[in-house]
């Protein structure tokens, strides 16, 4: 077995066992994870109710960062754990973790769904196996239904994104396999094919290790900014459809400020944002 993973017994009276992740450091350098978390954070507003689903290290970090900087009245519902306004001390990879319960309230999972599905959430974060030009997102399968090339975990809670105010998609890779012309299964609905942004809403933002993207008035995905060290060509060539480009020079995604990095280090005790990508 690998020696990389070491159980770490934390101090305190609770018999909690955490794991030290391989490659984790003190997070002193700025990594893609930090850039992504900051980019998401900048798109959260003071007072937003934010709901995250499974595998939500980045969105949880983004929401907490926003709370500790420009959005002190933001509320975070930490997915399956039911933790509301968790201190994320420490930030952990599983949304259903006990660590998320150093929080203000613990909701049952049905109650988390009520907030998400009942229209009480301003922002919902989601990811997928495939994301297409219109923002459709697929967690079910790649390929045909009878014999898929890849079976995904299932649509989970993402079909209900449209009940929330805004949807932010995120991914820990940016490849032509992920960003496809048309998803093989719609788990989360994007902008309607013809009507553009009139009618029902699609996702508002897509954040990847390479770039931040939004949607044109017609409802097509459009490059908004590239991360430091990434070229427009990098993004275009790793996107499986014709990505709309903004007029003029594509800006660089703002690096997290020193103040933001200080805040992140307060809750990302294991430096997970440095290794998540």
């Amino acid at each position, binding site marked *: 077995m690998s020696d990389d993973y070491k159980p770490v017994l934390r101090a305190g009276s609770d018999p909690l066992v955490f794991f030290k992740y391989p490659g984790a450091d003190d997070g002193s350098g700025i990594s893609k994870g930090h850039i992504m978390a*900051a980019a998401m*954070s*900048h*798109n959260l*507003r003071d007072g937003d*109710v934010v709901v995250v689903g499974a595998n939500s290290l980045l969105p949880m970090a983004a929401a907490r*960062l926003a709370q*500790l*900087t*420009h*959005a*002190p*009245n933001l*509320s975070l*519902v930490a997915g399956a754990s039911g*933790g*509301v*306004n968790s*201190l994320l001390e420490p930030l952990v990879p599983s949304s259903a973790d006990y660590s998320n*319960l*150093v*929080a*203000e*309230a*613990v*909701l049952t999972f049905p*109650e988390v*769904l*009520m*907030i998400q*599905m*009942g*229209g*009480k959430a301003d922002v919902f974060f989601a990811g997928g196996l495939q994301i297409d030009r219109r923002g459709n997102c697929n967690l079910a399968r790649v390929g045909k239904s009878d014999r898929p090339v890849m079976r995904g975990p299932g649509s989970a809670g993402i079909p209900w994104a449209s*009940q929330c105010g805004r949807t932010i998609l995120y991914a820990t890779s940016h490849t032509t396999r992920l960003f496809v012309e048309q998803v093989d299964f719609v788990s989360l609905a994007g902008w309607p094919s013809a009507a553009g942004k009139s009618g029902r809403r699609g996702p508002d933002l897509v954040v990847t290790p390479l770039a931040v993207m939004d949607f044109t008035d017609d409802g097509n995905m459009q490059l908004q900014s590239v991360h430091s060290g990434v070229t427009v060509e990098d993004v275009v060539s790793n996107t499986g459809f014709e990505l709309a480009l903004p007029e003029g020079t594509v800006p660089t995604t*703002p690096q*997290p*400020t020193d*103040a*933001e990095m200080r*805040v992140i280090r307060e809750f990302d005790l294991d430096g997970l944002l440095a290794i998540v990508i």
Partner: protein
Amino acid sequence: MDDNGSESQSPRASKLLDLEEAISTLVPAISESLWVGGMHMHNVPMALVRECIRQGKRFETFYAGPSSSMAAELLIGTGSVDRVIVGYIGFEHIGLAPVFRRTVENGASKIEFVEADSGSMTIALQAGAWGQPFAALPDGIADTDLPAASPAFYKRLDNPFSGDAAFVVEAIRPSIALVHCQQADEYGNGIFKGSVFTDRLLALAARTMIMQVEGVVDNNQILKYPLQTGIPALNVSAVIPINFGCHPTSSHRYYNYDDVHLRLYIEAASTEAGFADYVKRFVSGPEDQEEYMRRVQNQDWSSIQEGQP
């Protein structure tokens, strides 16, 4: 959105408000609908209800469920509601609701009363919280007179799975919810020291929720025992600290319902003049909760009793 991550100095906003300000700023002159928390003579946010009446607020629909007592009496008696969905209005073992009775039995009221039941109303509230458009009901309601009495409330359709007939009710999302917690922090994380009743669900279904509390605790207390938080702050618009704010109903673990006051109320309100006197003395008269409680403690009911036949 436009903030590029500069550290803000503004702290998290407190939701503490005083009674008069909360009701005047958060409750419109005419609201679509109202649901009042607590049940029977327990945990009913009476100070909020009285303040709404004092300020002349009107509610097009009032959900008298699952079990309403004094709140329904005052709202109906002062004409603050246009339509009442009736689950249960009464005082359990203490007696029937005199104003509700008289209003219906006189047959001349402008208020519309819809015959419903506590189970269906609560299922409808659950549907509202989940974002469901309507809710199917369990079997059995078809054997009662309720669907025929209230065909707009109970509708029939075919269960597409079994082909059987089923009754459904429309989801309820109260535009205003008034609720009492024993304690809360200044952000609106509410704690129940006793029964939760329907109020945790109400917090997830209501569009605007106003909370009165007996005491304010530090946010650190909330973070220490998050499993005891009964209502999460995220949907709470205001927190109003008021001592004995549920009187004459109980606040679990703080004080019991005021059996004496309730029995004297039922006696007094058995006439229109008696009820009017009660409202003058205990609702419109007192300028604040302190004055209300002084009047309660003095227990001077003589003028009200004069109003009796």
